[in-house]
């Protein structure tokens, strides 16, 4: 089976510092793949290259067999590759509902021509988008703040909204960038439930960068460990936790 994301021999340096050194990873369709590694391992860089926020120096990124290495983030979005941000991003001057309504992929109104010449079509689509946005808010449990400006939401609610954003379209792969960071335990439970439901019921594939090991352990299989810009090991969470190399990378060498 073709992996949904296939990263081949990516290299990326910033000035003289090589951050990703000939790194290849694969994400299988329908999986929730975790990506962990000590600080400076190149997780975020690799993540940004997959998301289209950074361009690699060399190598290839394939989405379901199709090369997307040089596509910009908004084009990747329309191919079903979505991301969330480590520090929750929101359009702070729009309400939660409007934030979600910014998203849909049909974009009929985003073409200058149809705005003026097909108003009926645009209106129908707006209504459809609105219905969808309300459903999503209900799903992620944010219905009660739908008319609140997104800038006023709590950190955890913003993260839920980020997840909601990915549900506004037919996503195939969602990249989660430390979605647990800064979220309290109760909301974290909601987040994890939502991610699992999306994976099970809607067939989303997830690639998760995370520092929260508890979350990785609950959600992810397989887990990829990066160190110094390369894949150190890949396997189930149990394998990873017992791997001496990983323990050394995280905690330093055992004193002799």
């Amino acid at each position: 089976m073709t992996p949904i994301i296939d990263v081949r021999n990516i290299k990326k340096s910033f000035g003289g510092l090589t951050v990703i050194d000939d790194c290849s990873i694969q994400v299988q369709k329908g999986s929730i793949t975790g990506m962990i590694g000590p600080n400076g391992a190149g997780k975020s860089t690799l993540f940004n290259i997959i998301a289209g926020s950074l361009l690699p120096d060399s190598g290839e990124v394939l989405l379901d067999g199709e090369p997307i290495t040089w596509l910009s983030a908004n084009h990747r979005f329309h191919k079903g590759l979505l991301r969330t941000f480590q520090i929750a991003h929101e359009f702070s001057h729009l309400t939660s509902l409007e934030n979600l309504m910014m998203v849909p992929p049909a974009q009929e109104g985003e073409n200058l021509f149809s705005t003026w010449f097909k108003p009926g079509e645009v209106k129908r689509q707006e209504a459809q988008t609105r219905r969808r946005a309300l459903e999503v808010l209900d799903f992620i449990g944010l219905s009660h703040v739908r008319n609140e400006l997104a800038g006023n939401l709590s950190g955890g609610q913003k993260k839920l909204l980020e997840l909601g954003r990915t549900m506004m379209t037919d996503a195939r792969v969602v990249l989660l960038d430390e979605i647990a960071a800064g979220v309290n335990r109760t909301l974290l439970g909601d987040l994890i439930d939502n991610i699992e439901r999306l994976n099970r019921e809607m067939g989303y594939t997830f690639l998760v960068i995370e520092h929260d090991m508890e979350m990785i352990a609950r959600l992810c299989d397989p887990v990829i460990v990066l160190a110094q810009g390369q894949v150190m090991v890949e396997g189930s969470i149990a394998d990873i936790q017992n791997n001496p190399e990983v323990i050394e990378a995280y905690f330093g060498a055992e004193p002799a």
Partner: protein
Amino acid sequence: MNELIYFFNYVVVAGSVTGCIYAMGAVGVTLIYSILRFAHFAHADMMTLGTFVVLLLTMLFPHAGDALGLPTAIVMLPIGMVFTSLVAVGIDRAFYQPLRAHKVKPIVMVIASLGVTLMLQGLIRLFAGTGAQSLYVDARKEIFRIDIPGVTRPIILTEPQIILFVVTIVAVVGLHLFLTRARLGKAMRAMSDNPDLARASGINTQLIVTLTWVIAGGLATIAGTLLSLDVAFKPDLSFFLLLPIFAAAIVGGVGHPLGAIAGGFLVGFAETLAVFNWSVLLRPIRDSLPSWIELPNNLAIVGTEYKIVVPFFILVAVLIWRPTGIFKGKVI
């Protein structure tokens, strides 16, 4: 009553004209700032350029407007707008986009836009010469005199002034509806709020940038052309417009289109009020003034030739008193 009519002609009408022009320029500056995050100094030269294109077209087809009963320049205006928008997009692709791709600091973009200013000014002078030229080629400007019963002095309005008021209202209402109702307009606001998220939400930011230049270029052409219709086309038009336009944008709160419009009118009226000869209004009550007050012939706050002081003054005052502008700016 004559004095009030005088006041109306020289303050209300003149102030509204200046206000409309500044407002349309300031909206362009503010939109460019909120999307691209830099102060676009070449904006006033886009006005000159647009006007120059309209002038050329008017000279080529001096009688194109006769059939419609409008000045030829007005008929040529849409073509000028399209052309200027294309040039604005071209300038962006050639000069600003490569800089953006290198993620330079905003100050570098500002200096680049200063370079574009000098380049455009030079080019326009090369082709248009340095003298003033009327946009009424081979036609006469219509002047309407409205007589008020019982008053000798009429209210005077010119054809371009009336067209200016109508066009400004249409442009402002249209822009407002576009930004608040149209999906693309909302996408524009979204991008000004958070460009990274806009991209991650599938918004085509390149399209938004192009659209911003098209709107700014179009409005600049309208403002420049209508001003030149009322006065005359001068290649150094931009020099006198740049500062008031920036003052208007800053006064209104940078990044706030409605604020820019308010700022435009504020600066425009402040200018006309400052150069207005207040002595005219005091003349009727001259006899009742105490004898030790001698009414001078000219009682303007600043002389016409120092008009440019006024926007400077407002600019500095606003920066000290309310640095974010009357309306809080930053995002549309």
